[in-house]
């Protein structure tokens, strides 16, 4: 047998099925306003935002090795950008959504340059301080109505049906950009460097990966994706306030979803987001007791199963949804 006989694959049957189904599902989201009740559309909008935000946190922590407990900084910044662009720029809110990533990007770059001086775990708390700074500054700025927050009045010009069409299109695009974009990036040369960094930053650096620059890039990209999701989420809410937009609870959600789903794997945040979303629908009314369970579950996963549910599943069945590696197949 020569090396020529060995076939190199990326895709497997499971990945072809999963990617087709995922694309079909995402493309069907914009058709929902024509057949689904508004309640379901609201749920899909929320779920899409959760998946996007969690996937960005996964990119940051799982591949970049930067644990952030302050992603709410960019959720709030994205949301507030949209509201301000609509209120002061007089822009159509749907068209303003892509522009809402500018502020998170501009904030992320200097934030990273400041925070990179902090060592490992201190970096995480540093991100939290930044998010608090953004929250307090927003709460003191009268331009954005200080502590009382803003309302997206411009949405009044659209009918409920038009709003749903706009939101569902945005959600489909959000998923394509965050999940699809991460998938494509991980399959590129950049992805190889990222995966090497995930496995061992020091040896990645020795192979010529510029770890510092990669981390900077990831931090900014994650802020953009998170900001985009924040803008869409608060567009659906029609209201934003410093307390909600910069709520540290957003970080709890990210951490729970990614850790339980499976960190450092593209499938993890999707599995985790679905789990969190349906668990909250089922048990959310238990309030604080439900949150205790979420916290303990995160603790248990960190202690006993750092690979998360998807990692556990992968041990039994090698059925990847989004293959980023290669498979060798010997001829029969």
């Amino acid at each position, binding site marked *: 047998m020569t090396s020529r006989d060995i076939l190199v694959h990326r895709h497997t049957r499971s990945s072809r099925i999963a990617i087709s189904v995922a694309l079909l599902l995402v493309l069907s989201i914009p058709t929902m306003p024509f057949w689904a009740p508004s309640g379901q559309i609201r749920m899909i909008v929320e779920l899409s935002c959760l998946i996007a935000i969690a996937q960005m946190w996964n990119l940051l922590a799982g591949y970049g090795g930067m644990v952030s407990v302050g992603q709410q900084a960019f959720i709030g910044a994205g949301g507030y950008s949209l509201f301000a662009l609509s209120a002061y720029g007089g822009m159509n809110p749907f068209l303003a959504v892509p522009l809402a990533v500018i502020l998170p990007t501009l904030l992320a770059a200097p934030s990273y340059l400041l925070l990179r001086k*902090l060592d490992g775990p201190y970096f995480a708390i540093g991100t939290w301080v930044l998010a608090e700074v953004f929250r307090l500054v927003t709460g003191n700025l009268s331009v954005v109505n200080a502590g009382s927050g803003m309302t997206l009045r411009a949405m009044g010009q659209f009918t409920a049906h038009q709003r749903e069409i706009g939101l569902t299109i945005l959600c489909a695009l959000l998923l394509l950009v965050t999940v699809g974009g991460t998938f494509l990036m991980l399959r590129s040369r950049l992805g190889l460097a990222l995966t090497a960094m995930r496995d061992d930053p020091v040896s990645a650096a020795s192979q010529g990966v510029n770890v510092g620059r990669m981390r900077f890039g990831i931090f900014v990209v994650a802020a953009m994706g998170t900001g985009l999701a924040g803008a869409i989420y608060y567009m659906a809410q029609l209201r934003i306030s410093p307390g909600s937009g910069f709520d540290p609870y957003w970080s709890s959600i990210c951490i729970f979803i990614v850790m339980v789903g499976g960190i450092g794997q593209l499938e993890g945040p999707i599995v985790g987001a679905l789990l969190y979303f349906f668990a909250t629908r089922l048990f959310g009314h238990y309030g604080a007791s439900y949150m205790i369970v979420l916290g303990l579950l995160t603790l248990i996963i960190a202690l006993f199963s750092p690979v998360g549910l998807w990692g556990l599943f992968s041990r039994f069945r090698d059925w990847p949804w989004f293959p980023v590696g290669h498979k060798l197949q010997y001829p029969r």
Partner: protein
Amino acid sequence: MKWVDAVIQGLLLGGLYAQYAIGMSLMFGVMRIVNIAHGDLVVLLALIGISLAAAFGLGPGFIMVILIPVGALIGWGLQRGILNHLVGNDPLPSLIATFGLSLALQNLMLTIWQADTRSLDAGPLAIQSVSLAGIQVGVLPLGILAVAALLTWGMHVVLKTTRFGRALRASAADRDAATLSGIDTKVVYAKATAVAVAILGIAAVFQAARTTVSPADGGAQLIYAFEAVIIGGMGSIWGAFAGGLILGVAQVVGSRIDPGWGILIGHLVFLLVLAWRPQGIMSRR
């Protein structure tokens, strides 16, 4: 005079932050671990203290005598049960685990004690004050600052002169070499965390006597402790003390400028130090 008063009040407030910071500095210095539930443990101990005081009519001094061993026990358990399994080069597992613990603790406290703010009745001590060069200074805040200085000095002496301190410094410098020299690092770590949380028992009583506590306050206290450590310089016990005082002064002076800006000015001073002197003001480097 208004500003002199603000600075003095700030120093006194900083005494409390310095108390939170000692334990964090110790744990990070020895294990490179940050316990995200650090602030929640202060709140938990304070609420236990308040409930004990209400149930048995105990004074703050008694409460402190009870909370110190309770804190040490919690710290020992935390290290043995959770953190010892996660110490390593990768900061992720310990961060995530303590984050989960923080979420669970906060909500557990919310179920037990509800969201009310509570405080500990310090009796006449709470309102006594002395006049220092024309500025009224509360006896209790002065005591808090003195205890913070005493704890920092004590920690310094323990690290420098005792067998336990040597073992701590050895484990911090090189875990494997310390193990080779016959130090059981897991036991050393457990003792370090026990000391860190026991000090939080002291801080909890002062926090509850000086202001109020509610189950959601932990996050802010974690952040203040962290800022104090970074402002002062990582790994320096006296640095954490100085950082706490600077943070306190920044917050009080800030809130005199505009009540909405106090905490924000504290954060900004932290960011400035990070930008200009990331090794901290007390670091020799």
